[in-house]
Each structure stands twice: as C-alpha cells, then as structure tokens.
C-alpha cells in the first residue's frame, strides 16, 4: 500500500489570523502547546475531533487545513 502523509497549514493560518500564538490556538482547540508544535512540524496526526476543533478556531473547514499527500 502506498505510504500517505497528512500535510497541514496550521502555521500559515495562525499568521493569517493576526499572528495567533501557539498557546492561543492550543487554548481554543483544547490541547497543549506541545501538541500544536508537533502538529505544525507534521510529526503528529490529530484525531478528527481535534482537527474539527482547530478548524473551528480558524473559522474554516477541516479540508482547508489538512490535506492527504500520497507518496
């Protein structure tokens, strides 16, 4: 099966939303700042629940933030 990765644009969206800090986003999404850091570095794939919470924090949809990239 081809290996797939999930890319995200959280970092770009934070800066587009008034330079929102990682801590602010973590508070809005209900997770730790460390989780936001590893998400931005694409070391961690969030659950659907967290993905929806992040999308809600940015006022957008999940597929506008997360995209599937197949190798």
């Amino acid at each position, binding site marked *: 099966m081809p290996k797939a990765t999930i890319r995200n644009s959280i970092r770009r969206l934070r800066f587009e939303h008034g330079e929102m800090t990682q801590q602010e986003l973590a508070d809005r999404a209900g997770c730790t700042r460390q989780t936001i850091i590893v998400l931005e*570095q694409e*070391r961690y794939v969030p659950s659907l629940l967290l993905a929806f919470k992040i999308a809600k924090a940015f006022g957008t949809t999940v597929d506008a933030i997360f995209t599937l990239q197949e190798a």
Partner: protein
Amino acid sequence: MALILWIIAAFVFAFGAFYFPVRWAQRRLPPIALPPGESMPVTALQRLAWRTLIAVLLLTLAAAAVVVYSGVEAWWEKDAVRLTATGLLIAALIVFALYMSRVWRWMARDGGALDERDRAILVAAPAGQGPAMLVTLAAWMIGLVETHQSTHMIHSAFLYLIFWSCVMVSVLAQLAGVLVGYRRS
C-alpha cells in the same frame, strides 16, 4: 562473573533496547524546529512523570544500595536491613500510586490537563513493561546460574529480591514509556 556485574549488564542491555528503537523512530520523523532561544514546552503529564521517575529511581537505588552494602544474607538475618530496604521500596510504590491517582483524576476529567496526545502516550506507555521484566528475569536467571552453579543452591532471600526487582523495573518502565512517548511523536 559477580552477580552485580550481570545486573549492570542487564541494565545496559535494557537501556540499549530502549534507546536505539527510540533513536530510530526519531530519525524517521521531521526534526522539530523552534525559534532561537525557545525550548519545547513541557506538558503537565511529562513534568509529573519526570518527577515521579526521579523519586522512584532514587528510592530504588537507595534500597539496592542497602542490600548490596549489607549483603544478601543480611536481608534474611537482620530485620533492620530487611525493613529499611522494604520500607524504601514501599515508599517508591507509594510515590508511584500518587502519580497514578493524579493521572486517573486527569483522565476522568474532560478538557483538563491531558489532551488527546497525552492520552495516546499514556495508553502506549506500558508497552515496555513486559520486555523490561523479561530482561530483568533473564539477568537474574543467568546471573544466579553463573554465580551459584558450583553449589547447586541459592539463598532464599533471592526470591524476594527477584520479586522486588521485577516490580520496580515494571514501575520504572511505565514511567520511562511516558517520557519516551513524547520523544517519539
């Protein structure tokens, strides 16, 4: 080879068995790039696991030092040695129980100190306990056989020491599993 050397060899082997797979997993992940002068923030669970690990490790090493310094026979014959070492080990278990009770309280509360990554790390943390206990038992078996082969008998105090070492290794492996989990993702 003296029994203590076998135990040290087992610890070195167990450390390697823990360290190299973690390094291998880390190499497959993209590196964490943080702004200059900034370090990775520590989560509440990570901080608690570190403190508990240090406390449990120090108490365990103190108990081991009492037994090694006094000798295995003293464990059996002198109440003071047995009570001191057992007291230190029970104190370590109480520290671990306090850690677990706080973690369970955090787990029960939604939107508390733990997020989904913390919970996933907690669920995966016990994975190292079984292998760590197997390594400990193997070290005892090889060490005791090699050092007591000629006499065909071992002191019954070793049964207690084997039990306690397995319990403490299991506790330490669980705590190490939490800390390693943060490095693997």
